């Protein structure tokens, strides 16, 4: 198979970028999208040109590193998978394919197709710790959690933090990500001690990073490789209201837990 790729090239965060066209030939149907790009880069290297920078790690859909907007859809045309799980047989031979980075103010471009997603890490940090007792190990079955509850928490916890929800959202909102993180802990007894403060801190951190607000279009769910449901956004909205009512005193500022070392 052969393809014409229209790839966003940008040398650095402050430089202006542009689309450059590349030919990908000798592509086999069984290649993943990233393997196809590896082939393109191999040729660029041989020709003495700068290879296209793109991010990956596990290449099996579990780490959340890969991040390409392919023909206008984060992670490409298939639902419930990451870019590394997308295969070239999915595209018609000879197709033109446009490849862009995640675009959001909170995700500055590092180079070409690589963006800095540490804003998501900072939102997680703002959520803080989960209290765990030290001492002798507790019996595994001492803490009873209903099956439905555990399953729902697990659905939320399957978020791999890739940021496709932000990339797909018209408002570049991180609500689905924050909703997944807040919900999975709020649903479990282990997350209860810090439940109230966590949601407020994470939402304020999300706003600080410059993500937009949720317009309830559900494009996030449509592109989420883990098919995380927008019902967790409703859960997040409820958790936030609950915190507003329950919280006796809000912390002065939801600073990052490492703020004192700055």
């Amino acid at each position: 198979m052969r393809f014409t790729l229209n790839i966003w090239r940008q040398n650095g965060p402050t430089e202006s970028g542009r689309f450059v066209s590349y030919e990908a030939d000798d592509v086999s149907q069984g290649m993943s999208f990233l393997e196809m790009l590896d082939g393109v880069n191999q040729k660029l290297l041989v020709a003495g040109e700068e290879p296209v920078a793109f991010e990956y790690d596990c290449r099996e859909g579990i780490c959340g590193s890969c991040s390409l907007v392919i023909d206008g859809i984060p992670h490409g045309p298939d639902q419930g998978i990451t870019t590394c799980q997308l295969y070239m047989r999915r595209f018609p031979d000879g197709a033109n394919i446009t490849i862009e980075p995640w675009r959001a103010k909170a995700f500055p471009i590092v180079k070409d197709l690589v963006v800095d997603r540490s804003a998501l890490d900072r939102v997680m940090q703002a959520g803080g710790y989960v209290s765990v007792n030290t001492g002798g190990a507790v019996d595994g079955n001492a803490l009873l959690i209903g099956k439905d509850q555990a399953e729902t928490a697990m659905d939320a916890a399957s978020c791999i933090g890739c940021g496709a929800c932000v990339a797909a959202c018209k408002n570049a909102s991180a609500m689905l990500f924050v909703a997944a993180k807040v919900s999975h802990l709020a649903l479990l007894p282990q997350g209860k001690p810090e439940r109230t403060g966590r949601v407020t801190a994470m939402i304020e951190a999300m706003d600080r990073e410059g993500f937009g607000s949720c317009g309830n279009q559900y494009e996030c769910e449509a592109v989420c490789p883990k098919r995380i449901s927008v019902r967790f956004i409703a859960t997040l909205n409820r958790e936030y209201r609950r915190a507003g009512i329950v919280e006796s005193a809000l912390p002065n500022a939801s600073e990052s837990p490492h703020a004192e070392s700055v």
Partner: protein
Amino acid sequence: MTRLLRHFQSSVGSKVLLALSGLGLVGYVIFHMLGNLQVFEGSRALNSYAAFLRDMPIVLWTARIGLLGIAVIHVALAIHLSLQNRRARPRAYAIHRYRYASIASRTMAASGLVVLLFIVFHLLHLTAGIVGPSPPDRIDADGYRDVYGLLIHAFQNPVIVLIYVAGQVGLAFHLHHAVSSSLQTLGFEHAALNGLLKAAGPSVALLVVLGNVAIILAVFLRIVR
């Protein structure tokens, strides 16, 4: 107080206020439509209903000021959030494809603007009587102000009909997404209710707009005269 302020200043808090103010306006829009449907009962019913409302100046003005306040909150927050959202993606995608988003949900700011312009026109036209072809300001047989006559006069004019129907189309688009969206914003979600919550927007939009357009067209087509 600062705590409340801080709660509603966040994106989620602002959305909650947007949803609550929007639902307040939805409540009024439904009430307004039901009231006006009395045009089908004849001039007597409508004129005495109008007089009944005007007979309670304190209630009337409280409602008017309350509505104005709610509308100002809604529009101010909508502008604030829209600008913030625009800033969240400084550079647009070369290609962007939607998967779930309805047309209505993608045009909320535009449909909101149409509704705003329409409301201004509507107030100047029928409430204040400043714009539009000047109507006969009459008193009916019972000594009430002839609101019925005003409507008949207004909606026999094709230009006015066009403006009102356009306003209703804008409202239909806005409500189609708004009502279901606001329920999600307020955190309503349950496996047994999701179908209902999703249908709420389109249903309310259809109900309100059918009711309003029925009045306009009934007069225009001389079914009601």
